[in-house]
C-alpha cells in the first residue's frame, strides 16, 4: 500500500492503516503482554484523574495556596456530579438524551452528505484529468480556508436549526473524503488497470472492479477522521448559534463559568466519538476483507 505522497495534511488526510504488521495473539506471552498493557492503561487513567482530583482538593484544603483551582479547571468528582445531574434531571435545554440525539443527528446527516459527495467528486475528478486541471486551483483555494469560518454564513443562510450544523459538518467531511478518494483513484496500480483493460473491462467495469475497490481502502481510512470532523462541525455550529445540542450545553456551561459542565459535555462527546469510531472500524473490516492484515487492533 502506498503512503500518500503529496498529502494535504491540512485537510486531515490520512494514509490507510499500515498493512505490514500483523498482531497475532497466539504467540507465547501474548496474554501476559495484553494484561500488562491494559493494566498500565488503567493505571494511567487513575493517575491522571486521581492527580487532578487530589490537586483540586489540595487547593481547597490549603486555602488556595497551591493545587488546581476547581473553579477554573473543574474536578473529576464535580464532572461526575454534573453528569449525574444531567442524566437524572436533564439539562437547561431539555433532557440529556435529546441533546445527544440532536448533535448525533446533525453529525450523521452531515457525515453522510459529505461522504457521498466527497466520494463522487473524488472519483469523477480522479478519473477525469481535464476536469481536475480546470477545478484544481479552486479546490485548493477552498481547502486552504479554515472551514469553521463558514459557520456564521451557514447560520445566516440556514437559520438556527439543524440545517446550518448539517451543512458545516458536511463541508468539513467533504474535503477530507474528497481528497482521499481523489488520491485513491490516482494511486490505482497502473498494472491492474492495464490488466483489466486487456481482460476486456469496459470503462464502467474498470470503475466498478478496479478503481473503486482500490480507492476504497483510502476512503475508509478517511472515514475514521471524518466522523470526528462531522462532530466538530455539529458542535461548533451549535456553539455559535443553536437552540439544542451538546455544543450548546458546552456554550451555556462556559458562559456560566461551569468548568465541570464543559468537561462533562466533552466526556459525552468523547464517548459518542468512540462508539462511532468502533462502527467505522467494523464497517471497514467488513468491506475490505481481502486485505492482508485487517485493521482490528492497529487503529488506535
Amino acid at each position, binding site marked *: 500500500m502506498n503512503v500518500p505522497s503529496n498529502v494535504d495534511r491540512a485537510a486531515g488526510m490520512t494514509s490507510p492503516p499500515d498493512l505490514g504488521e500483523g498482531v497475532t495473539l497466539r504467540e507465547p506471552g501474548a496474554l501476559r503482554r495484553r494484561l500488562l498493557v491494559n493494566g498500565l492503561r488503567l493505571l494511567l487513567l487513575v493517575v491522571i484523574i486521581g492527580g487532578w482530583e487530589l490537586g483540586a482538593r489540595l487547593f481547597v484544603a490549603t486555602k488556595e495556596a497551591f493545587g488546581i483551582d476547581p473553579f477554573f479547571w473543574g474536578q473529576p468528582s464535580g464532572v461526575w456530579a454534573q453528569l449525574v445531574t444531567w442524566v437524572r434531571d436533564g439539562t437547561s435545554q431539555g433532557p440529556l438524551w435529546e441533546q445527544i440525539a440532536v448533535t448525533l443527528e446533525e453529525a450523521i446527516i452531515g457525515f453522510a452528505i459529505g461522504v457521498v459527495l466527497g466520494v463522487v467528486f473524488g472519483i469523477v475528478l480522479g478519473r477525469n484529468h481535464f476536469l481536475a486541471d480546470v477545478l484544481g486551483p479552486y479546490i485548493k483555494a477552498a481547502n486552504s480556508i479554515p472551514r469553521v469560518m463558514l459557520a456564521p454564513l451557514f447560520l445566516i443562510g440556514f437559520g438556527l436549526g439543524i440545517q446550518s450544523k448539517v451543512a458545516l459538518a458536511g463541508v468539513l467531511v467533504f474535503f477530507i473524503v474528497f481528497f482521499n478518494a481523489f488520491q485513491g483513484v490516482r494511486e490505482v496500480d497502473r498494472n491492474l488497470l492495464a*490488466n483489466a483493460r486487456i481482460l476486456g473491462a469496459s470503462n464502467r467495469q474498470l470503475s466498478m472492479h478496479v478503481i473503486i475497490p482500490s480507492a476504497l481502502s483510502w476512503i475508509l481510512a478517511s472515514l475514521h477522521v471524518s466522523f470526528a470532523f462531522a462532530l466538530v462541525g455539529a458542535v461548533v455550529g451549535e456553539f455559535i448559534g443553536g437552540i439544542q445540542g451538546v455544543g450548546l450545553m458546552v456554550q451555556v456551561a462556559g458562559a456560566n463559568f461551569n468548568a465541570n459542565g464543559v468537561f462533562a459535555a466533552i466526556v459525552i462527546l468523547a464517548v459518542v466519538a468512540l462508539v462511532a469510531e468502533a462502527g467505522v472500524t467494523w464497517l471497514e473490516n467488513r468491506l475490505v476483507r*481481502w486485505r492482508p492484515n485487517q485493521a482490528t487492533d492497529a487503529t488506535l
Partner: protein
Amino acid sequence: MTQHPTRQERPKGTPVNIIMSDPAINPQDSKSQSAVAPSAAGIALEHVTKRFRTPKGQLYTALHDLTLSVAPGEFCAVVGPTGCGKSTTLSLISGLERPSSGEVYVMGNPVTGIDPRIGYVFQTDAVFPWKNVLKNVVAGPLFRGVPRDQAYERAHDWIARVGLAGFEDRYPHQLSGGMRKRVALAQTLINEPRILLMDEPFSALDVQTRNLMGDELLQLWSASAASVVFVTHDLEEAIALADKVCVITAGPGTVKGIYPVDLPRPRNVAEIRFEPRFVELYQTIWEDLRSEVMISYERAKQR
C-alpha cells in the same frame, strides 16, 4: 517441434554485427528473406519506433526501427539488457501504447486498440487483490459478456488446469508467489488468447518454481496454439522455452539478431540446459547479447 520460418527483415544499411561461429545457428540472413505480407504472421512489427517524453520534457527513444514477426503458434522469446524497450514492445503489440512511427499488425490487422484476442501476463502481480482466486479468474469472461454460469464453469476448469483446485476462495495475499502467477496465467488463458504476451512473468520467482512454471506454461501453450512473445532477461529461460530467441540492442532497442532454437519438444525446462545443443546455442546467443549488456552497464555507471 518443427522450426517455424522466421521473417526477419532488416532495413538496408543496418550493420549486422553477429559473430558467425556455427552456420547452423546463424541468424537469418536478411538478404535471403523476402518480405512476407504481415497478414501471414501472428504478430508483425514493422520499422516501429517509439519515443516517450520524459518528465523533463526531453524525448526518449525506447525503440528504434524495430522489425519483428512471430508466426501463428510460434513461441518467441525476446532478450535484451535492462531498459532496452522489451516491455515497450509488448505494450505496442497489446495496443496499450501506439508506436510513434511504423506499424504493428496482429493477425494481419493493424493494431488500433486493445485486441480481444490478446492475453498479457504482467511482470508484477496484476491479479486483483480484492478478488479471490475464483473471481480473479472469472473476471475476463464476465467482462466480455459470457453468461455467468458458463463463465464460472470455465473458471473452475482453468483453476483446476493450473493446479489451484481447492484454493478458489483464497485472496491473492494468502497465496505464494508461484500460486499468484498461476492465478495470473489462468486469468489470462481463460480468454483463450490467440496472442499471448508475457513480460518477465516468472522473474520474481525462485529458480525451482520458475522451472516448474516454465514447464506448465509450455504444456498449456502446446494445447492452445497461441503465438507467444515472452520477454525475459534470462537467456537460459529464453532458450529453454522458445522456438526462436530475439536479441534486442541496448536502448534505443532494435533487433540485433534472431536465433531459431531447434531443440526437440516436449522439453523439460530444468533438464534441457544440460543438452550439448543447448549449451551451443547459449554460447552463440550470449556472444551477441554480451556486448549489449556491457553497453547498458557502462551507461548505467555513467549516470
